């Protein structure tokens, strides 16, 4: 059974780490790298802080995202 991570960015509704959306949000990323690259891990953009953060990060503004059920930090 998957464990629900209750507080990390990977499970937050403000967190965006879809590959295509990231490549659209960061112009030039796909020109000489890729959002599908292993070095990116699951990093994404926090819409609250407007920062590019690791999925395992945490913050007080966490808002549970149902679609992220199963995310494990």
């Amino acid at each position, binding site marked *: 059974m998957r464990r629900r991570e209750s507080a990390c*960015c*990977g*499970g937050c*509704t*403000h*967190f*965006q*780490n*879809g*590959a*295509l*959306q990231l490549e659209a*949000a*960061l*112009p*030039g*990323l*796909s*020109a*000489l*790298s*890729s959002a*599908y*690259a*292993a*070095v*990116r*891990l*699951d*990093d*994404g*953009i*926090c*819409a609250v*802080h*407007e*920062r*590019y*953060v*690791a*999925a*395992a*990060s*945490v*913050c*007080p*503004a966490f808002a549970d*995202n*149902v*679609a*992220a059920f*199963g*995310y*494990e*930090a």
Partner: protein
Amino acid sequence: MAHIAHTAGSQALARRSPWGGLFRKEDWWAIWIGLALVAVAVALFAGGSSLKWIAVAPQKWTHLSDLGQQLKVHGLQYAALFVLWSVAFGIGAAALGIKISRFLPAFVLVYVAAGALYFLGQWDQAAHYNLEPPLVALGIGLLVSNTFGVPRWLDPGLRVEFYIKTGIVLLGAGLPLTLIGWAGPVAIVQAAIVSLATFGVIYFAAVSLGLDRRLAATLGTGGAVCGVSGAIAVGGAVGARKEEVSVAISLVVVWAIVMIFVLPLLSRSLGLSTGVAGAWIGTSEFADAAGLAAAQTYGGYAGNVPGIAGTPDAAVSAFTLMKVIGRDVWIGVWAFVLSLIATTRWERTGVQSKSSAAEIWNRFPKFVLGFLIASAVLTLVTRGFDYAAYKKEVVPALVAPLQALRTWAFTFAFLSIGLTTRLREFASIGARPFYAFTIGVVVNVIVGFVLSTQVFAGFWNRLGQ
């Protein structure tokens, strides 16, 4: 930014599982595709056959009629090769979440355009007119994407990194493991000197100019380690602002593209051997795809431009040893160390990052493993052959077909670089980040030049013999 928050709930967020990463990262798909091709090539070779029928490549030609004749004779092979690449990259793209119905139409155009560039490179007057395929591919791509524009339906087929990583895995089949063992330590020492110097210069210049430490670290790693990949790895590890990551990406891409043209030009004017030039490019270029475009261009001068010593492959081999073995593999270490410093020493941002030594493996560019495995496999398979037998039997039946497939994959990537570089979409850079990064570029190029042409010149020259 608001739209990002709203779409977050409608799509599946990344999930981690022990095996999930093996299928949802392009590094692994580059390994699967590259090693599958190597395995098939080895199996056919062991059975007395070869992959060369499908690994078709244009031959030297003089008149257009020769070209027509080649297409007429080998048309079926080119069609079969298209099917092979479409299936391989199509499956990989689908696993990454790119719809195959969107990937395939775009890939048709990529394949046809890459084929045209490959043929152009085989024209016996190509070197005379400086029509090196990587530069032509890049130039045409940049021109089209920044003037007429590239239709969005082409985007799914323009996967620079997917193609270049697959090509690097195939490149491993052409580099004996003994050579990597011999040259690797020197590459690591040279890369360490340049990486530390470049990072230090960019970081301290940026901080001195009043820029945030997280931006300074992101810029520094982009310039010193592995370009855009380095910037996003460290940007995420330290929690940089989104626009800071965008600025770093823009600076790396612009300078990397400038260097694709400048480094081969300078090397040529100085008459550097292919091995030395490849090492310099590997030290001073910022991204794998950009550097391979420059190195392959320079390799093409061997035998065509008077005064350029060394074999054509030496430039690409030296580049790969320097960049992939010397610099890329350390990105996880950089990300871990900088995230540790960010969480313990720098001002808080509102988001608390977690620093873990696991970062070293998690951010490791896995395609390097495929490169090393391919090298080990070919080294084992060919160890019973003496040099004469190797040249006569192994090269034409096993090594050359894999080399042709590698050139195809690289050409797909070179074409995609130009077509995905839309300068008007780039973030506004600002003067201070530009100055900080550019100082680092200058230091990087000078130190890389001194190390490649003076300190380790004898070593890199031997590589090209």
